C-alpha cells in the first residue's frame, strides 16, 4: 500500500496569492494513497526541506509529491532532499503549481481546483514510481575539436595545456580560419597574422594535439564521455610524410586560374597549392576538381615528374578513421553573404562592389595587391570609396533579421585603413546605427570619424548603379531632414551579413545537436549555459553559434575548454536512469524499434536454449546509449518496451486520474 506525502509550497506569494495552498493540501489528504499532506511558505528553503525529510521518516512515506514550481527548476533539489531522508530520489515527483497554474491564471476557485487536480495526477503517478539508480559510465579523456579557426585553436591549446589529448579536424588544407584572412584587427590595429600564426604553429607542435587537416567529421555516435567519431581524411594526393614543402609543384602547375578561396576570390591559385604562405601544415594538396590529371584521365602529371622528394601520390584514396573521444567542441565558424543577393546593388554584376572580407584581402600585406587598395575591375586606386553597413543584416525582407554584430567595427577599421593608405581619398560609411559596444570600441569608431575624417552618413543606400566607370551610390542623410546624398564612388564595400556555415545543418544532424532558425548552433541556455549544447558532452565556441569578433570567440573557446577539462577531471559520469528497457518474454523481435532509435541503442539479443541453439531474437537496449526519448516505447505493438520515469503504468494513471467521474468537489 502506498504512503504518499504531499508538500504544497506557497512560493511566497507566487503560488499562495492565486492558489489556496492550504485547501489544496487539505484536499490532497483525501486522495487515495496519501498518508500525509501539508502546505508551507517556502518548500525549497532549509526549513522546508527539513519539513519534507522529517515527514518522510516520521510517516514512513513511500513516495513524495512536491507541489511547487516547475520540475525543470527544482526537481534535482527535491530529489536530493528525498535521498537525504533515505527515500530513493526517483520516488519524488513535482506538481507544477507555479509556472503552469498560479502564474498563468487568475485567483479563482477553478485555479485552486486545477492545482489540486495536478497534485492528484502526480500522486497517481508517484504511486507507480520505482526506485531507480543512476547509471555510471567511464570517461574517455580525449576531446575532438571540429574546426581550426581561432576558436578551435584556442580550445585545443587550452585543453591540451591542461594535460588532455585533443584531436583537431579541419576541412581545409590549413588551419587558421577566417582570422588568417584578416589584415589588421580592431580596435588595436595589430596585424592579424602576426598574432595568429604563432598559435597555429603551437597547435601543430603540441604533443597532446593530433591535427587532421583536409578532413571532415563523417559521423558521431555514442554519448558524453564515450563518443565514437568517424573522420574522413580527404585524399591530399601528396604524401605529407615525404613532402618537404619546397613549393616547386605549385610554381610549375599549369592550371593557375582557380579563384583563390584564401583571397576571397580576388586572386588565383594553382591546382596543387598551399592556401597561404604561413599555412599549417605548410604542405600542398591537390584540388582534384580542378587538376588536369584527375579531370582528363591521367594527362599532365607534371608535379609528379618534378617533385624532388617523390611525394606526389595520385592514387591516394579518402581514408576513414574512427577515434574514441569523451567530448566534442564545435568551432566551425561562420560564412558571409555574397554581394550577389542585393537586387538594388546590381545582383553582384559590378566588380567593384566587394564584401568586407575581400577588402580585408586588399588591405592585407599578404593579399593579391600586397596591401595596396586597388579596385578589382581595373586595378586603379579608388579615390572615393563607400562602405555600406547592414548589407543583408537587419533586413528581414531580403537578408536576415539579426544584427551581425561585427560589421560596424570592421567597416570603421576598413575606412581607417583606407584613409591611412590613400591619404587624398574620400571614405564614406552609410550606417543605420553604430554598434560599438566593447572595450575601446566606441573610441575606435570616434577616431575614424574625428581623426581620419571618415564621412559617416546615417541612412540606408537605396540603389547603386554604374555610370561612366563610377558607381553611383544613392542614399539620404536622415539626420539632415533626409537630404539626398549621391556619391560617385570608385569602389563600394558591403558589410555583408555574417551567416551560418552552409554545412551547419548537416553537421548538426551528424552531431544530434540543435540549431536556430538561422542555422547557427543552439546553446543549451542563452545566458547560463552559453558554451554547451543540449546534447551532453558537445560544446560550442566561436562564430558557429553566432557572429562574433575575435575577443569573444577566444573567450568562448576558453570557456568551452574549461567545460571539457572539468568533464575530464572525473573518471566516471553518472546519468539519470530514465531510459527504456525491453520485456524479453513478450518481445517478438520485429526490430522496428531499431529503426526509430536515433542513438542506435537497440541491439539484437539471442535467446538460447540450454543446448546453445538460438530459439529467437529479441531487442535489447544498451543503457549507455539510450537517452530516454521513448519513441520505441510508443512504437512497440506488444508494449514490450517500457521506459523508466514515464512508464506505461505511470502515464496511464496520470491520464485516467484527470477528469474522472470522481472529480474533485471544491468545498
Amino acid at each position, binding site marked *: 500500500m502506498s504512503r504518499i506525502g504531499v508538500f504544497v509550497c506557497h512560493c511566497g506569494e507566487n503560488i499562495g496569492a492565486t492558489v489556496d495552498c492550504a485547501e489544496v493540501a487539505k484536499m490532497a489528504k483525501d486522495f487515495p494513497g496519501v498518508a500525509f499532506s501539508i502546505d508551507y511558505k517556502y518548500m525549497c528553503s532549509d526549513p522546508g526541506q527539513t519539513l519534507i525529510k522529517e515527514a518522510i521518516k516520521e510517516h514512513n512515506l513511500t513516495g513524495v509529491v512536491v507541489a511547487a514550481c516547475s520540475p525543470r527548476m527544482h526537481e534535482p533539489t527535491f530529489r536530493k532532499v528525498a535521498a537525504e531522508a533515505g527515500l530513493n530520489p526517483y520516488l519524488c515527483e513535482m506538481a507544477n503549481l507555479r509556472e503552469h497554474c498560479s502564474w498563468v491564471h487568475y485567483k479563482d476557485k477553478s485555479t485552486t481546483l486545477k492545482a489540486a487536480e495536478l497534485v492528484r495526477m502526480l500522486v497517481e503517478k508517484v504511486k507507480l514510481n520505482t526506485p531507480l539508480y543512476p547509471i555510471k559510465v567511464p570517461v574517455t579523456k580525449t576531446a575532438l575539436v571540429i574546426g581550426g579557426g581561432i576558436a578551435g585553436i584556442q580550445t585545443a591549446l587550452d585543453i591540451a595545456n591542461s594535460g588532455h589529448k585533443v584531436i583537431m579536424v579541419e576541412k581545409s588544407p590549413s588551419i587558421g580560419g577566417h582570422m588568417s584572412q584578416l589584415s589588421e584587427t580592431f580596435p588595436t590595429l595589430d596585424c592579424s597574422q602576426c598574432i595568429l600564426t604563432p598559435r597555429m604553429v603551437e597547435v601543430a607542435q603540441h604533443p597532446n594535439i593530433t591535427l587532421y587537416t583536409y578532413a571532415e567529421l563523417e559521423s558521431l555516435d555514442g554519448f558524453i564521455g564515450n563518443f565514437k567519431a568517424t573522420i574522413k581524411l580527404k585524399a591530399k594526393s601528396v604524401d605529407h610524410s615525404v613532402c618537404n614543402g619546397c613549393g616547386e609543384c605549385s610554381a610549375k602547375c599549369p592550371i593557375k586560374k582557380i579563384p583563390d578561396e584564401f583571397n576571397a576570390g580576388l586572386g588565383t591559385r594553382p591546382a596543387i597549392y598551399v592556401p597561404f604562405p604561413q599555412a599549417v601544415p605548410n604542405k600542398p594538396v591537390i584540388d582534384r576538381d580542378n587538376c588536369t590529371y584527375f579531370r582528363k584521365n591521367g594527362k599532365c602529371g607534371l608535379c609528379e615528374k618534378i617533385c624532388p622528394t617523390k611525394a606526389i601520390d595520385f592514387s591516394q584514396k579518402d581514408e576513414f578513421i574512427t577515434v574514441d573521444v569523451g567530448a566534442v567542441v564545435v568551432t566551425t565558424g561562420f560564412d558571409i553573404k555574397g554581394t550577389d543577393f542585393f537586387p538594388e546593388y546590381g545582383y553582384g554584376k559590378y566588380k567593384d562592389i566587394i564584401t568586407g572580407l575581400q577588402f580585408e584581402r586588399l588591405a592585407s600585406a599578404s593579399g593579391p595587391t600586397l596591401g595596396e587598395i586597388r579596385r578589382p575591375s581595373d586595378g586603379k586606386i579608388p579615390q572615393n570609396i563607400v562602405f555600406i553597413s547592414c548589407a543583408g543584416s537587419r533586413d528581414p525582407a531580403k537578408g536576415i533579421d539579426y544584427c551581425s554584430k561585427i560589421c560596424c567595427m570592421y567597416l570603421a577599421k576598413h575606412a581607417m585603413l583606407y584613409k591611412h593608405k590613400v591619404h587624398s581619398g574620400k571614405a564614406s560609411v552609410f550606417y543605420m546605427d553604430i554598434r560599438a559596444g566593447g572595450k575601446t570600441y566606441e573610441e575606435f569608431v570616434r577616431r575614424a570619424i574625428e581623426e581620419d575624417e571618415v564621412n559617416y552618413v546615417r541612412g540606408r543606400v537605396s540603389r547603386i548603379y554604374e555610370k561612366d566607370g563610377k558607381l553611383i551610390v544613392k542614399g539620404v542623410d536622415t539626420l539632415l531632414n533626409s537630404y539626398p546624398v549621391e556619391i560617385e564612388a570608385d569602389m563600394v564595400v558591403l558589410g555583408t551579413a555574417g551567416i551560418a556555415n552552409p554545412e551547419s545543418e548537416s553537421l548538426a544532424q551528424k552531431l544530434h545537436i540543435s540549431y536556430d532558425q538561422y542555422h547557427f548552433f543552439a546553446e543549451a541556455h542563452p545566458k547560463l549555459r552559453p558554451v554547451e549544447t543540449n546534447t551532453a558532452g558537445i560544446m560550442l565556441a566561436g562564430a558557429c553559434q553566432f557572429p562574433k569578433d575575435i575577443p569573444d570567440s577566444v573567450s568562448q573557446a576558453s570557456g568551452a575548454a574549461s567545460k571539457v577539462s572539468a568533464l575530464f577531471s572525473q573518471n566516471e559520469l553518472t546519468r539519470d536512469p530514465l531510459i527504456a528497457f525491453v520485456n524479453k*518474454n*513478450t518481445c*517478438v*523481435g*520485429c*526490430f*522496428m*524499434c531499431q*529503426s*526509430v532509435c536515433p542513438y542506435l541503442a537497440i541491439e539484437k539479443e539471442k535467446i538460447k536454449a540450454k543446448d546453445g541453439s538460438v530459439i529467437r*531474437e529479441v531487442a535489447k537496449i544498451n543503457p549507455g546509449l539510450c537517452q530516454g526519448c521513448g519513441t520505441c516505447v510508443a*512504437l512497440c*505493438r*506488444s*508494449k*514490450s518496451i517500457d521506459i523508466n520515469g514515464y512508464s*506505461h*503504468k505511470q502515464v*496511464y*494513471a496520470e491520464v485516467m486520474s484527470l477528469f474522472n467521474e470522481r472529480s474533485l468537489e471544491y468545498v
Partner: protein
Amino acid sequence: MQELNNKIAELLTNNLVSIFISYKKGLNGKIKPAFFTKPNEVYENYFGDEAQQNLAVYVHKPEVKKYSKVGILANIFALKALLQLYAENQIKDNYLTIVTVNQDNKVIVFADFNEIESYIAQHQIEKNTNKQKEINELLSLSREKRWEFWVEQLSSCIKCYACRAICPMCYCSKCTVELNQPQWISVPAHSLGNFEWHIMRMMHLACRCINCQECSRVCPMNIPLHLLTTKINSDMEEEFGQIAGMKTTLDFALNTFKVDDYENFIR
C-alpha cells in the same frame, strides 16, 4: 494441379520440407487448409479459385513451428504477407519453401525472398474500385453520420478475436488486448472496448496490412473490417507512398519519416 501435387510430393519425399501447408476440400465441399506431412496425403491437395484463405497465418502457429522445414502454397496475398513477415524478421532463412501457381498454371518454387519481391512487383493486385467507392461514400457523409455507422457496426463486435487469429500480421506472443497492467483495451464487449480494439489493431497494421481481408471474411458478426483495412492501406499509399508486402527490407510507415512530411494540420 497434377504438376503442383507432384511438386509437393517431391518436396516431402526428398525431405526438403517436413510439412506442407496447402488446401483441401472438406467434407461439406468447403475449401479448408491442409497440412501434409507425407507424400501419400498429397492426393487430397486442392488448388483453385475458391482457395482464397491466406495460409501465411499458419507459418507462425506453434503447431507448424515445431517442424524444422516448412513448405507452403502461397497465393498472391500469402506471398505479400510472407514477404512482409520476412522483412519483420519473423521468418528465418532456409526455413520456408514457398510455392505458388502463376496465372498460366505454372508451378513456381521460389529460391529466396528477392525472387518473391520481383514476382510481386510483376503481379500487382488490382485495386478493388467497389470498396474504394464504399469508402468514398462513407467519407462523403457528415462526420456524425459516419460515427453512427461505425457505432452500429462495432457495437455488434463480440471480441472473439477471429480477426486477430486469421491475420498473418498478428503474431505477437502477447497481444496488447491481453495486458491488464494497465488495461489498455476495456475488457467487456461494450462499444468502447470495441472501438479501442479496432483502432489499435488498425494503427498496428498501418503499412503492415497486406489487405487480404481475411479478417472481414471470418468475422462472425459481419463487421465490414475490409473498409478499415482498405482505407488504411490507401492512406498509407497516398500519404507516404508505401505499400506493405512489397519489399524485403523493413520500411513501415511509422518507423520511418521524411523531414518534409506534410504538417498543415499542426499549429
